[in-house]
């Protein structure tokens, strides 16, 4: 297997995700799930594995939602998936088709032609969505199968809807989906939302528009973390071998790759690809050298600047200085820092003096994968790689 940063991975080659997948299936017995993880950590691969290798009794329907830019597009896409799915079982999305017929849709020789909604201001997306799901639930009940919607890149779709149709539609959509879960949850309906923009940021921005609901708090948040050391090393080993990189210390080299990449598969692939391109031998020193080059590269090939640039967007300009100060302090400290210590530092720097605000900021920093806590509740960088880059880029 060759290094393939950014490309699609052969599911047979995926390593280190069995545990989280088991956890997802176990959770789905009880409730729906949202998965929040950084871009390129491997969410989509997990979705593909859930879809292609479902646990017995589950029938997944997978969709990448970033291609839908209005609520209607989404609803119709769901209908099409449901209809396509049912037609394979010689069934039909009866309720929804009746709805379409009532709106002017026609069926000619078995092909259903949708009515045109082009001229209507208020499209019946909610009805289409609800009926489609009802059609599915009804049939699934008969088949003793449980439907599972695997929806990737939900936040992107919400952003698009917000932009094209306004916050209200985005809020309504979230509420509608929650309603469907509540109504049909007992019938086994489950949803998995994933997204690289944290859903909490989208909802936070909607809240600014007086959105008071908590549309996703019924969904358990499951983080997708980087790979544990063992699978990370296994992946590194596979890639070093797959690329035919010369090495007399394969084990040591793979160990270093697994460590310096913090187990991010994307970076593991990148490091090995860069190693291949360099023509260097696979040694621990050379791995270190390559990582250093990538971190120092003015072109920022891993786009780590994103972690700096997004701060003003995610936390608002009001808190930008405080967040920078927090991260700078933790970067240079050799140990995890307590809330009190950080508050003192922020006060001295004149950027923040409110303890609650600090706690809130730290919580979001944790959700955004900058920081994590030890048993004492002290904060430190979740990923040493990011800390290393932060230190280099901030000149600390």
């Amino acid at each position, binding site marked *: 297997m*060759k290094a393939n940063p950014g490309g699609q991975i052969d599911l047979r080659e995926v390593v280190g995700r069995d545990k989280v997948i088991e956890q997802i299936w176990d959770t789905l017995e009880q409730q729906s799930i949202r998965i929040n993880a950084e871009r390129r950590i491997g969410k*989509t691969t997990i979705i593909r594995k859930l879809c292609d290798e479902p646990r017995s009794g589950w029938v997944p329907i997978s969709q990448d939602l*970033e291609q839908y830019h209005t609520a209607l597009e989404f609803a119709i896409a769901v209908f099409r998936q449901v209809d396509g799915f049912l037609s394979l079982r010689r069934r039909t999305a009866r309720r929804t088709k009746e709805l379409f017929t009532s709106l002017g849709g026609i069926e000619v020789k078995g092909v259903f032609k949708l009515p045109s909604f082009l001229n209507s201001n208020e499209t019946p997306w909610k009805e289409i969505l609800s009926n489609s799901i009802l059609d599915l639930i009804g049939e699934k009940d008969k088949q003793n199968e449980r439907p599972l919607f695997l929806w990737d890149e939900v936040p992107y779709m919400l952003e698009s809807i917000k932009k094209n149709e306004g916050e209200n539609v985005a809020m309504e959509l979230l509420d509608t989906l929650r309603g469907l879960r509540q109504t049909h949850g007992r019938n086994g309906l489950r949803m998995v939302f994933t997204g690289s923009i944290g859903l909490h940021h989208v909802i936070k921005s909607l809240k600014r528009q007086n959105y008071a609901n908590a549309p996703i708090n019924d969904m358990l948040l499951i983080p997708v973390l980087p790979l544990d050391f063992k699978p990370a090393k296994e992946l590194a080993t596979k890639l070093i071998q797959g690329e035919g990189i010369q090495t007399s210390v394969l084990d040591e080299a793979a160990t270093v790759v697994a460590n310096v990449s913090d187990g991010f598969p994307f970076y593991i692939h990148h490091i090995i690809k860069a190693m291949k391109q360099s023509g260097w031998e696979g040694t621990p020193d050379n791995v270190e050298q390559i990582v250093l080059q990538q971190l120092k590269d003015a*072109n920022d090939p891993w786009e780590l600047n*994103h972690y700096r640039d997004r701060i003003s967007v995610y936390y608002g300009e009001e808190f930008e200085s405080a967040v920078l100060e927090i991260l700078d302090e933790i970067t240079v400290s050799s140990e995890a820092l307590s809330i009190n210590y950080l508050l003192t530092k922020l006060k001295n720097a004149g950027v923040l003096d409110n303890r609650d605000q600090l706690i809130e900021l730290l919580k979001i920093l944790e959700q955004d994968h900058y920081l994590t806590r030890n048993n004492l509740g002290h904060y430190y960088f979740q990923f040493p790689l990011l800390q290393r880059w932060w230190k280099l880029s901030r000149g600390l």
Partner: protein
Amino acid sequence: MIDKIFLSLFTPSRSRPEDLEVIFVQRHGILADAVERVKESATTGNKHHLLFVGPRGTGKTHLVTLLVHRLDKDVSLDNKLRIAWLNEDETSTTLLEFLQRIYLALNKRHEDEFDKKSFDAIFDFQPEEAKRYIIQLLLEKLQEYTLLVIVENIDTLFEELGKSGQQDLRAFIQENPVFSFVSTAQKIIDDISKRKNTFFGFFQTEQLKNLSIHEATELLRKISIINNQQDLASFLQSDTGRSRILALYHISGGNHRIYIALSKFITHDSINMLVDLFAKMIDKMTPYYQERIRWLAPQQRKIIEYLCACERPVPVKAIAKRLFATHQSISSQLNDLRKKGYVQANQRGRESLYEIAEPLMRICVEVKENQTNDPLRILIDFLRIWYDGRELSMRLQECNSMSVEQAYLKSAIDKNLMHGNLRVQLMAAEFRAEISDNQNSQSDVRITVDVVVEALLYRGIAHGKLGESEKEIADYSVVIDLADASADAVAEALISRGIAYGKLGELNKTITDCSAVIDLTDVPVEAVAKAFINRGITYGKLGESEKEIADYSAVIDLADTFVETVAEAFINRGIAYGKLGELNKTITDCSVVIDLTDVSVEIVARALFYRGIAYGKLKKLKKAITDCSVVIDLKGASMDIVARALFYRGITYRKLGKSEREITDYSGVINLKDAAPVEIVARALLYRGNRKLGESEATITDYSAIIDLKDAPVETVAEARLYRGTTYGKLGESEKAITDYSAVIDLKDAAPVEIVARALLYRGITCGKLGESEKIITDCSAVIDLKDAPVDAVAGACLYRGTTYGKLGESEKAITDFSTVIDLTDAPVDIIAEVFFYRGITYRIQNNLEKSEKDFKAVISLENTLIPIRVDAYLFLAEIYMSDGRWDFAILMIDNGLREERNSHDTYSGDSTNIIDVFFKSTFIPRIRQERIRMLVKVYEDNNAIAQLSGALIKHLGVLFTSGEDLPASDNLELWASAWEDTFNNIDESKLPLRIFRTGIDFLKSNGKDHSILLDLNQEEVKILKQAMAL
């Protein structure tokens, strides 16, 4: 130069992929890697997406064309992969349009699988339905295939698609993981590089670099080879070729496309031609550059126009000031222009200085602004690099006044005067960049002229060690031409360059460079001394001994020279005297050095060694041995000189006949192994091998050791193979012998001609022994035709070819070959004797008894010829005399022959069968027969050769039996037997043969049919008779 094959400048995909393969440079690794990744995409669930980024003209399409070509050629992918290479000029603003392009591209390559009819049905649908239809159609048609989509300028596609289009595309790819993308872009765009954007991290990005100067050279070399222009390929390696490549490189900025366009100029010397071609090229390229500039946003365009007008790199603040813009906005635009490959930045302290990445881009602005026909700056600069300072002045003198060319040359000279020699500056800059690249990036070393000079001198030395003399010379030349290099450095560079020229055999240039150092003022005396010594050595090589000696004497007379340098001069002068035969002066000069107290052991050792040789030549062998022995025992002397001393002492011992010591010394050299010079070890092995004659195994071991010795001189290896071949030959291992001879022959001109000639001759002889007459004729003919082959080899070849012709019955050819040898001057006497002998036999066969007799007499008259030849010559003469009745002379010749035989230490016995035969036929009269038998028996008895006679008698029975003629009558045979019995019965020694003879006669009398007669003899005797009679 690119007219011979079609290389499209702007659309490489229209060129033949095979041609593109041949001229491919710099990116072999990238291409091979891309092929592997697409193959993995086609054969597994891993789908790779590749992006190649580089400014226009950097060879992106060339790379993609070769990728497709290689994938097409790979039959293992026939059932795995389909390729949609999209037409880059089409637009797609939606996923639907993009998918249409994909389908049509597939239809173009695989019309049967992706038919047009199915595609046309798309237009019956609304856009959303159409999209669903085409997705379904594509996936159906693709079945198990992976689809490779090639998108050139993906930046344009992303721009056209916009964010929502990109999201549609990405979702489509994610939902249908059967695609692999190979794309190109002119720069990294935010759509790919920013984490918040849809395609962040999607592609494996490869930044394509511009050509380095070395790669540019390689490109030109390959184009010259594909065009079959070998002379051009060599020209590119020359000094002039190199500087011209630099000129083209400077103008093109390393851009592949521009470089190929400019390469037409490379061989043009004539200024008229250059100016003319340049004008045409500008005409052709201006629209290209104008289009490139037009393509930019207005602010960026203004920056480029301003930079085009600037003579030197400029800081951001100067551009901002000039364009009335903020520092920040110009900085961000410059950053973007840099990514697009339009500008390049150089760091000066904390400041970034910007300039146009491709100087040729200036032509747009210049041509537009230039309404007055003033010389174009770009062409002036071009000429400043194309010609060195001397050439510019020379060509100016040759130009017509008031001509355009004169104006250009004058401008170039003036600009060089004002700004320095651009050619030299660039060469130094190129090198500076190289050493800068090689330095640790953490390092803060300022690259001063001294650093550059030092590094150039070191690199020159390194090139020299690698045998890259041209490059070595070029490095020294840069130092010599550098205006601000120190006199010391220039002197060092001149001396080193002189030595490098010497290695190339350009001895006059060595003398010029050394003389330049001698004439320099302000250089250290040591440099002058070195120059004298090297010039002296060069004069020596040219055979100008007087000048050579004068230069060494000059060093000896120089004040303040290092003592070691003076010692070297003494030794060299001594050697020079030696070559003139003035060996006593050699001894004097070397003795001076030996008596010096403050020189190194090595110098003393050399002086001793050369004095030893001089003594040897003066036949003062003991003194020679003493000097060599001192060297051998000298503590601290290098193994090099010790090995030479040992070897020479071995040779000297040989002259004194002390073989054991001789061999011990050779073994001493051999035991030094790698520490001794390989040529000396090889010679020692050869000499030891030669001295161990008779010990075949040991000899073969020594010769084999030479053959296996890495870097042994080819002539020694050739000799070793020849001698090993002859040793094998002696052991009867003909095949091994032939293999060795053939190996020598295959060396051709690399081996000395005398060795090759011998190998041919010996191979021929060995083949002859195996009965392969044709091969002996071929090999001997090759020797005879070999230019400068030694006379003994030619004589030997004529002899063996002649005898072979003789055996084949081609007597005339045989006689011609033998006569050739006889006419040769300086042919070895033993070979002359042999050819006389064999020519005598040939004449005898032709029944030309007169000439035959003459030749045999000639053999006898020659001194120091081999006994067997002489004996046989006498017996042949006896036969001739007997046949024409000169019986007394015949007996005399037999007597002489047998006497020589008896008196020699040789164990050779002649064959008298023919004599018996002639005698048998000469008379039937019993009385005369008896009388003559008595005479014969007497002469053989006198010479103790009765066994030879009786043997001949028995063999003669065989001659009678096997001649094919009717057997003699029984009474004739009976009379013949009785006559012999009468005489032989009295001689004890002949009793046994006589019994065999009698049985043979009885057998013949039975007409050779009654085998029971043979039972009269015991088994041993029967065996002898049967052998004689070929029963």
